[in-house]
């Protein structure tokens, strides 16, 4: 598999706390993306970070990327019960400088935020 691991597999926190999820991958990438999936539904795109970027923010989301370690993290600050969902990282891999043009997904982290 092109994709590595996400950890933790499950995370349970209280409202107001921060949630951090990590993603590792195996190949060179063009970009890395994070998605959210509510139970039994389709995925919603959250944020995209390119291989030449190290950090990106969007509202309460902060994503970091370390291409030397082939890893990324997603931080959700001041979590809410409505943030309860599965979170997936996905990589747009490259070979010989050319994007594969398709995303490979990790196994996901199940986040539960208790009111």
């Amino acid at each position, binding site marked *: 598999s092109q994709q590595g691991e996400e950890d933790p597999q499950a995370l349970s926190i209280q409202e107001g706390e921060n949630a951090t999820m990590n993603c590792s991958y195996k190949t060179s990438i063009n970009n890395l993306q994070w998605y959210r999936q509510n139970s*039994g539904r*389709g995925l919603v795109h959250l944020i995209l970070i390119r291989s030449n970027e190290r950090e990106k923010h969007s509202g309460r989301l902060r994503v970091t990327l370390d291409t030397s370690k082939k890893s990324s993290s997603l931080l959700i600050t001041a979590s809410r019960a409505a943030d309860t969902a599965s979170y997936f990282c996905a990589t747009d891999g490259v070979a010989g400088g050319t994007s594969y043009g398709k995303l490979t997904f990790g196994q996901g982290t199940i986040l539960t935020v208790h009111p």
Partner: protein
Amino acid sequence: EADIYQTPRYLVIGTGKKITLECSQTMGHDKMYWYQQDPGMELHLIHYSYGVNSTEKGDLSSESTVSRIRTEHFPLTLESARPSHTSQYLCASSDQGSNGYTFGSGTRLTVV
């Protein structure tokens, strides 16, 4: 409103039946994808298309087939459904920009 639509939402069908899962998008995206996802598991790419009359097999071998006759339409067909095909099938499209993929709500298929 630009969006991506999958029908049916749920399908329970007997072994040996032929089924077609529909996927349509109104965003004019050239790239479309089918992913298979078992409950609580990762997504596996089974088919993708870069435009009309272009289809490719994905990373996970699948007995399903796809067609892309129109930009907006990317149906997936199983000629003879089996219980091993029971899964959720997710359709997505992209514009190659910074907006990532747009996913449909999925079709949950159960073959009995």
